[in-house]
């Protein structure tokens, strides 16, 4: 779906939103990861606490800077603290 970012939500983030995936419309030029995260927190207030403790993954790589651009077609994942084992 052009024009949109796929946001994948896991664990507490998934429960907070009630969905494991969101499709978020962004500018054709993309937005910074920070502004995407802020807007997620605004639209889903229950998600805000999880966002504060999560790591983020952009197209299967850990996000290194919040200024990185997220563009239409990208996949952006929210990873709350891990709990395997």
């Amino acid at each position, binding site marked *: 779906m052009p024009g949109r970012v796929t946001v994948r939500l896991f664990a507490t983030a998934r429960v907070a939103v009630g969905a494991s995936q969101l499709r978020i419309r962004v500018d054709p030029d993309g937005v910074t990861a920070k502004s995407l995260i802020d807007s997620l927190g605004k639209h889903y207030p229950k998600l805000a606490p999880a966002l504060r403790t999560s790591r983020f*993954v952009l197209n299967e790589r850990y996000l290194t800077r919040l200024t990185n651009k997220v563009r239409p077609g990208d996949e952006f994942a929210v990873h709350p603290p*891990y*709990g*395997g*084992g």
Partner: protein
Amino acid sequence: MSLRLTRRPLSVPAAMEALEGPGLGGVVLFAGRVRPDATRRGRVVALEYEAHRTLARVVLAELERKVHRRYGAERVVLWHRLGSVPVGQVSVVVGVATVHRTEAFAAARFLIDQLKARAPIWKTERVQPARRRQSRPPSPGGRGAG
């Protein structure tokens, strides 16, 4: 090298087989089993595991390479269950085979610690809510268990 993220039960004998190799005298295996922990909401009856599968495979493959380089681990098993795992069942198996035992112990310990810290896998507790205390009706004339 053997990586698995699976909804099916993990078999320790199969892990031992995957760890066979000529001259590998020391095998250390860690198995994590689901504990019936008491929580505020009740007693745990199962853990529900989910993963970011593609990324988890990348992270686990990196761990395998690392223990091969660092500890000379010739065979490695890194298996994790996904979905619902009932109390008492094995949710994770980490296994290492090396020529000597010191490296096998160190590598297995490293793998499980790193897996827990770094693999994108999560658990949710499923609990059996503590039953409300209810007065049982008096037993109708029986003396023992029905």
